[in-house]
């Protein structure tokens, strides 16, 4: 047996080149085609084993989509395929400029409520985060393609910071809106 959903890598699964810059539309299209072939709804009256296989395959396809869809997860996965250790838990050092920036942004967030138009201020910070994340993604892509994997790895850590910031901004949006409406 050649092709196997359960063992090939996520890029192979969706038949796209192994790269950070992926065509998400194409991935989505192939995702749907695969789903149509393997989804448990296609095996409602099938045997227990077919159901099991169908569920395993669908689960894996979903896992693959989830991983490739999110830039940070996709980046981590690329490094994992290169056998790079992506356990950041015990790493505490970070470049000083970046940390400074982060602190300034947190400060801005903590003062948001005092602004005349807190939602507009949140939008501003949010857009900044978006723009920076985008730059980091571009940098990651070049580093990865040039096989400068240590740099790429460091960029992922920064992207994770930005991801957290984005979540905090969303939470703030929610709680401020709750107060207003």
């Amino acid at each position, binding site marked *: 047996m050649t092709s196997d959903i359960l063992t090939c890598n996520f890029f192979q699964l969706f038949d796209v080149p192994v790269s950070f810059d992926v065509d998400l539309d194409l991935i989505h299209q192939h995702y749907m085609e695969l789903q149509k072939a393997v989804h448990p709804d296609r095996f409602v009256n*099938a*045997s227990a084993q*077919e159901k099991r*296989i169908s569920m*395993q395959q669908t689960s894996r396809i979903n896992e693959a989509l989830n991983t490739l869809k999110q830039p940070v997860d996709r980046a981590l996965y690329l490094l994992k395929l290169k056998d790079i250790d992506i356990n950041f838990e015990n790493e505490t050092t970070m470049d000083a400029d970046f940390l400074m920036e982060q602190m300034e942004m947190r400060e801005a967030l903590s003062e948001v409520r005092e602004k005349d138009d807190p939602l507009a201020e949140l939008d501003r910070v949010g857009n900044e985060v978006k723009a920076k994340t985008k730059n980091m993604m571009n940098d990651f892509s070049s580093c990865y393609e040039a096989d400068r994997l240590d740099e790429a790895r460091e960029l992922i850590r920064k992207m994770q910071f930005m991801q957290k910031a984005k979540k905090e901004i969303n939470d703030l949006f*929610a709680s401020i809106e709750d107060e207003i409406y």
Partner: protein
Amino acid sequence: MALLQINEPGETAAPHQHKLAVGIDLGTTNSLVASVRSGEVQTLPDVNGEHLLPSIVRYVEGGVEVGTSAREKSIDDPLNTIVSVKRLMGRGVSDLKTLGNNLPYKFSESDSAVPRIITCNGNVSATEVSAEILKSLKRRAIETLGGDLEGVVITVPAYFDDAQRQATKDAARLADLKVLRLLNEPTAAAVAYGLDTGQEGVIVIYDLGGGTFDVSVLCLKRGVFEVLSTGGDSALGGDDFDHAIAEWIIEESGYKNDPQASLARLLMNESRRAKEALSDSAEINIEINRSDFKWSGVLTRSKLRELIEPLIKKTIMACRRSLRDADVTTDDILQVVMVGGSTRALDVRKMVGEFFQREPLVNIDPDRVVAVGAALQADVLAGNKPDDEMLLLDVIPLSLGIETMGGLAEKIVYRNTPIPVAKAQDFTTYKDGQTAMAVHVVQGERELVADCRSLAHFELRGFPPHVAGAARIRVTYQVDADGLLSVSAREENSGVEASVTVKPSYGLEDSEIETMLRDSMDYAEEDMKSRSLREQQVEADRVIEALDSALNADGDELLSKQERQTIDEARQELINAKTSDDSGVIKAAIKSLEKVCDDYVARRMNSNIQKAMQGHSVDEYISQDQE
């Protein structure tokens, strides 16, 4: 073993036979059953021409009444008449307090985590009450359609957690119904509007029923629905509008006592009548004349708006959050679909229209639209439309996590992840010499375990002692297409395993269900035996037929001579076993045939996938890898 299932459309040998399948909307206030008949989907009426079955069950000496007749008695016999039982589905004793202030029933003190309502006909759980509603709809369907049902699709609020979904499935089992799929109500509504064949884009389903509010943001792309996000409130609905009105009446009347059950029910009924009337007129007179309560007054449309506006605002807030979760803005939205009887309230339509900046769709009866969609999906799943490409992809509504040190919930499967899905996470021990670990499975978005819903506890025991941090315990969460969870844990160094199908603290144990089934009048024990023998014989025939057809199609291509021989032998053994009058023997033979076919089935499925991927072959990459 329906290997037939994966044949290309049109290859199926047997002539196509229409299978009876229905969709059931098991609602808080009303329930419905619908079916596709000669190409058209219809909700099925009872003998009196009523389509809606009030979701009300009354227990009387030696019997059960469901629907309108039960509703008529609800004021006189509130303790034996169970309304809005859906709110209790999958809820534990500890949840009752948060729900409890409006519940007139008496609950039994039992050690079981499942709350049981005391009635004159014994103590019943929410699952059993729901099963009575399902049985009633099932009878109606069988009488109308004239045959046994192949299966049902039952809808649940997208917001239902694992326990509530499980309880719904259990209720179906008690009613002896085969569940083809639990379908999220909003998805069903989108299907009913035929949005699956319409323009591609973002669709919002605003579903305000009697007892639940759901908002779902769906994305339709290439004929497939994807749920981008779901939100809502499983304890907010039109009942709360009635409540707000009833409280206003009590306040206006100066009544000081806690209203008794029958008075409370009467006030709720009057409130509902007033609310409904205000959809057509600007004001309505309310008059209540009882020995313990006398009051008359006028409720105007603007007063109504004042009373219910805070509740509608709560729904709008949930809409806002769901849009953000889905990462879309109101500009991206193509359609807004209104579902649920409470969307008839003019204020609701108005405020929803204002928020989304577009007229919501209201042309299908909002009470029936979910059942209609469920019936369409049941028709597809029963195999009546082999060429139909419709596939509904669902997401998990609430994150699934695990308790870690300090009472924190660590998420393992994030909400809005498409299902089915499997996710594994590694944990370790924190004490030297530790040989066991407790796994606490929780569901919810909050950081603290105490704020999440507890689904299950189990223990992984007997792995060899390690120094702290050296054991490697892999916990795997698997969620199936219905959104039901099973969890397993394995210590990787020793291979010690433990697992649990989440039958949470609030579900019924399998044995409980079996007992109930046995206790029910439908089957005496002898019946059960012969029934299960018949079932196995039919299954054996099906397996053999499916296998033969598969072997004919590609047996030579995919199997070596020896593999073929092994399969043929197992096939012959099953044919021999079929003559046995012991269902266990047949079952075992089926199992062993399936086992030797395992690889073959997998190969067939894989070759099917390759066909699906057509031009772009997965092989190219794989062979590169192996070089």
